């Protein structure tokens, strides 16, 4: 009789390769970017011409250190590079410069949030430990055309930070949540863009299973070169099921390197342990050990943005935001900072501001802007949005009118007050004038029946009196005030 799947626990470790946001390549002065003609972004160093030497790009090292600070890692006093030797045409020197023994980032952790019971409910938070992250060079791209092969070295030498987790992840959902958190933290710190469509983030996914409650790790497989979060999720699901099937059929798991076909949603064997490369690592003699000064670390520490979950907790606890709005805001640093500028201009109602930002502003930005959505090109400035919320809070316009004013602000960039005045939207909150109108309406025999019904206990009957009042004030009467006055006079 087969064991139910829930008896198995999956153990996942990820190696995430992120192309750092730098102007030049990691060991050469050649620039890099997406969408260039093949072999345009090369120079003698990138091509590994005889006699050329690597020079470490300071910007790439600093972005790596910044990543370390973002995840709370210790920044070592020194780091160094090693050569990983293997032959392949996309590898210009037939060795890759990487950091085997002394990486630039050691330790650290990434907080993740699992999906809640519903969209509006916060899920469980966990911490995933980072083992280390090392700075290495990307390789070129080999493609086959007809009877020949073509190689493009534009990608060769692009700075690649390989972030290696501890085997702390326990489900496809955790793997997915980890990657989303990691991408948010990396992009918010300006370390990298993580544009998966451009191949700027690629993952190797290590999966093993074990009986729930046991400690010993099972034999793992490594699925390489996954270029989207959904591929990682699908790989974990596929590989977990495959390994359970193998073990339950009485077979064993082979330690192997696997590939992933995202179209067919299935994995395949690339090579097993016997075919594993001997990379003949040794310290690169061309790059002396690099000292990382504490001054540099201090300077970079100032660039670390607020952690997104710290921000989430602050929005909920200190600003009183609902979970959903807080989550939307903190996932985008620019949006959150925009929101905070608005709150600074009108601190009385952060929820009202958050509601407009997370719903109306994002919706209109998404609908109007050519991708990517840009706050910089947005015509409404934070203080203007705060002004709109303030007008609503003061009863000058209704919430319904605020939506209308917002739409106008979004297209024109004008202040809320100017639009309200120009459109004559300002509500009538003159108590004396409204009292007079309310008393006249109450005196009208046409509403006597509704008054009687209200007095008999039918709450809704009061609404029949509001229509005539609105009509007399051309719809500008403050509805809250009218309601209060009606109840006062009807006793």
């Amino acid at each position, binding site marked *: 009789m087969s064991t139910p799947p829930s008896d198995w626990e999956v153990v996942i470790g990820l190696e995430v390769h992120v192309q750092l946001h730098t102007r030049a390549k990691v060991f050469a002065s050649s620039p890099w970017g997406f969408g260039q003609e093949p072999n345009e972004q090369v120079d003698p160093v990138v091509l590994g011409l*005889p*006699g050329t030497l690597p020079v470490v790009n300071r910007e790439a090292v600093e972005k790596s250190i910044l990543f370390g600070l973002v995840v709370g890692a210790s920044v070592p006093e020194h780091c160094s590079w090693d050569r990983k030797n293997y032959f392949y*045409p996309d590898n*210009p020197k037939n060795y890759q410069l990487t950091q085997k023994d002394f990486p630039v980032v050691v330790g650290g952790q990434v907080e993740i949030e699992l999906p809640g019971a519903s969209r509006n409910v916060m899920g469980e938070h966990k911490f995933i430990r980072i083992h280390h992250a090392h700075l290495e060079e990307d390789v070129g791209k080999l493609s086959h055309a007809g009877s020949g092969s073509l190689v493009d070295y534009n990608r060769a030498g692009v700075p690649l930070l390989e972030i290696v987790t501890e085997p702390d992840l326990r489900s496809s959902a955790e793997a997915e949540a980890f990657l989303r958190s990691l991408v948010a933290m990396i992009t918010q710190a300006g370390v990298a863009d993580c544009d998966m469509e451009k191949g700027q983030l690629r993952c190797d996914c290590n999966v093993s299973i074990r009986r729930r409650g046991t400690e010993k790790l099972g034999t793992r497989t490594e699925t390489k070169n996954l270029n989207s979060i959904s591929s990682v999720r699908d790989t974990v699901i596929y590989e977990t099921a495959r390994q359970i099937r193998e073990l339950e059929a009485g077979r064993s798991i082979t330690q192997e390197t696997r590939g992933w076909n995202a179209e067919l949603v299935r994995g395949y064997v690339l090579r097993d342990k016997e075919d594993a490369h001997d990379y*003949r690592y040794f310290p690169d003699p061309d790059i*002396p050990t690099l000292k990382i000064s504490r001054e540099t670390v201090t300077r970079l520490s100032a660039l670390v943005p607020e952690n997104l979950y710290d921000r989430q907790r602050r929005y909920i606890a200190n600003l009183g935001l609902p979970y959903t709005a807080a989550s939307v805001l903190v996932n985008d640093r620019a949006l959150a900072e925009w929101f905070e500028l608005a709150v600074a201009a009108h601190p009385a109602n952060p929820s009202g501001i958050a509601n407009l930002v997370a719903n109306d502003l994002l919706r209109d930005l998404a609908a109007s802007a050519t991708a990517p959505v840009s706050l910089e090109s947005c015509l409404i400035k934070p203080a203007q949005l705060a002004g709109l919320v303030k007008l609503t809070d003061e009863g000058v316009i209704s919430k319904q009118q605020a939506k209308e004013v917002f739409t106008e602000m979004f297209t024109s960039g004008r202040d809320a007050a100017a639009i309200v005045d120009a459109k004559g939207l300002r509500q009538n909150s003159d108590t004396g004038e409204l009292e007079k109108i309310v008393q006249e309406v109450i005196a009208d025999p046409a509403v006597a029946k509704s008054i009687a019904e209200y007095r008999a206990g039918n709450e809704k009957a009061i609404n029949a009196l509001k229509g005539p009042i609105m009509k007399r004030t051309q719809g500008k009467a403050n509805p809250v005030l009218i309601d209060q006055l009606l109840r006062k006079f009807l006793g």
Partner: protein
Amino acid sequence: MGEVLHTLSAGELGRRLAAGTLTSRALCEALITRFKALNETVGAFTHLDQADVLAQADASDARRKAGQGRGPLEGIPVAIKDNIAVKGQPLTCSSKMLAPLVSPYDSHVAERLRAAGAILYGRLNMDEFAMGSSTENSAIRKTFNPWDLARIPGGSSGGSAAALAAGLVPLSLGSDTGGSIRQPASHCGVVGLKPTYGLISRFGLVAFASSLDQIGPMARSIEDCELLLNALASADARDMTCFGPADRAFAPSGDAKKLRIGIPKGFLGKGVAPEVAAAVNAAVAFYRAQGCAISEVELPSSDLAVPTYYVVATAEASSNLGRYDGVRYGHRSASAGTPVEMMTASRSEGFGPEVKRRILLGTFVLSAGYADAYYVRALRARAKIRGEYLAALAGVDMLLTPTVPTPAFKVGEKASDPLQLYLEDIFTIPANLAGLPALSVPCGKSGHLPVGFHLVGAPLSEAKLLAAGRLFEAAHGFAHQQAAL
């Protein structure tokens, strides 16, 4: 005057050029005439673009005429070993693997020479990828010792030394990984300096063993060697291991007669030929007579140097030479197949036997399961040797030994015995392992064959070494010597 120009020192040529009694064009024409007459016999050069040389000479003469001369090397030809990149010139390392390659860029030293107004004069033969001690491993041609054309010139900078000894050029550049400047300098009776590791940028030097390689000047006199060194040494941001000189000028300084010279214990017993020992002992006696303090020093780990070197150097070489695969440049096999098959075939066809031997050895010593026993142990031995040398050099200014145990051997004599050939470098290797400056100075003859002695100093003590060399040179007749051809 053309018939004697080739006998003059670079210093003297520079003075005549400055005085206007000589033009760079006349000098280059004279040297080209000599090249045509002798290069087939000596085999020092693998390439000389005569039109390019004359164009450079004309440009130099024009600069000088316009009062824009660039210093003491203005208009002086410097020949360059074929593993140092010069834009637009072949960069073959005397290998079939790179025979089709023309460098698209200048090495740092080529830039320095151009900035100094020198004429970049041709490509010099060498052991393939600088691996060898006789220049017999060149895939392009043989080079012969101008003092005895049946003998080897030494190596791997054999072309650089032979060109000087044959009067084909006044100055040349070599590279030294285990003795490749000093050993051929000794065999050809010229001066060769391996600078402190990091003094001269390696940018543009084709790597053999990156932690050991240094470019260095070769000349027929100490003065000329200094002249060239001063032009080459400078910091370069393109080589992270290059820190450049603390002080730009390397003119001999201090009183050479007060130098403290250490003689490593037992070095003259190690298979050193009697004539070599005699010449070196005479040099020691000379320094003592001049007032230098001579003392014996202990270097107990010296025996480890050669095996340590052949582990470290081959390990680095196996990786450095990985890039030659026929994909981007160099020899590509005509046999079709997958990219990886093409790479394998290109390498099998392109590399000579000594290069293959060292790649295989280096691959082995770095392999999983063997790296700890070989490569890691060699690094420890290297640190020990460096420590002993630095400790010894704390008590003396320099160490004096023979450069090579025996004079130049006959072509083919040791071709079948690589281990015997590796012992040619027994005295020179420690300076590379320890990153120290070392100078070979001509000091006599064994029969008709030149012999040199070897000075090793503390890091950045080039000026002291040169001062000691000049003191000896001034009292002896070995400066400016050339073989009669």
